[in-house]
């Protein structure tokens, strides 16, 4: 029984270990989606210029050295500056690239909410066709009652 358990455990380890190793290894295809070709002004993934080819060779060399994705991106920033990153870093002034849309969304949501609340407080209806709030005026109400009485069976 023990021997069987040990065999199963060994098989599981053998199956899982390469998968874990592969997950840690950086991939050129993944990095290409996250960094720019500084000369072309496009994602490296889309670039075919000589500079882009050099950048790919450089990334491959770092992958072969066992560098992680983050380490490779950090090295590219040292070489080319922050602009090599397709997404700006989440620190310093670049943080505004993430914060401004959120703040703008929140301001718009609050403004919309305040607008709706004011509209509802003011009656929420302009008394136009199809209006249900307040019902018909006195004269109309009497005429309506008279009409309904005529149809009363």
């Amino acid at each position, binding site marked *: 029984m023990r021997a069987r358990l040990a065999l199963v455990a060994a098989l599981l380890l053998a199956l899982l270990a390469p998968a874990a190793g592969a997950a840690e290894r950086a991939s050129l295809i993944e990095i290409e989606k996250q960094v720019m070709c500084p000369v072309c002004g496009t994602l490296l993934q889309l670039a075919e210029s000589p*500079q882009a080819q*050099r950048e790919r060779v*450089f990334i491959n060399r770092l992958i072969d050295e066992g560098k992680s994705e983050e380490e490779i991106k950090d090295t590219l920033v040292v070489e*080319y*500056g*922050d602009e090599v990153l397709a997404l700006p870093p989440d620190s310093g002034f670049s943080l505004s690239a993430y914060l401004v849309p959120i703040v703008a969304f929140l301001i718009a949501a609050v403004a919309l909410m305040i607008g709706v609340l004011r509209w509802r407080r003011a009656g929420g209806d302009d008394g136009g066709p199809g209006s249900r709030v307040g019902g018909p005026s006195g004269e109309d109400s009497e005429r309506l009652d008279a009409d309904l009485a005529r149809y009363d069976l």
Partner: protein
Amino acid sequence: MLAVVGLLVFGLVSKGSSGLAVGEPVPNQPLPRLEGGGTGSLADYRGRWVLVNFWASWCIPCRAEAPALEDFQRQHGGSQFTVLGVDTRDLSGDGRAFVREYEVGYPQLRDGDGDAAHEYGTTGVPESFLVDPRGKLRLHAVGPVDEEYLSEQVAPLLPGGSS
């Protein structure tokens, strides 16, 4: 909303670059040296004529002009003139390999993020800017320079006159 619009306008204005005109002062912000560490700048050469040459190791025309620039430096380089290379938007290792391969002896700075090239208003590489001893632009060459350009356009402006 105004802040967002302001940021967009700032971005557009700061991205736009009309390039330098002859007679204008030339930017001289410090840049890392390509080899040896530390920083250098055009200001280090104030009082000399300087041919600022933007290049990159991946640029094929830059390979063509490197020997001509090196020859010109050997003939005219000294207390009154120097070529100053600026390796732009390039990998530092590739840039250093280029310098060794073409046996370039004049000083080299590194502009990895391309900010200096942008300030000069370059449209690509190579581009060369002849700066006078007061730091003002005297000549601007888009594309590779050759012996003919250097001897006919640059040399006559240097102290001593002709090539």
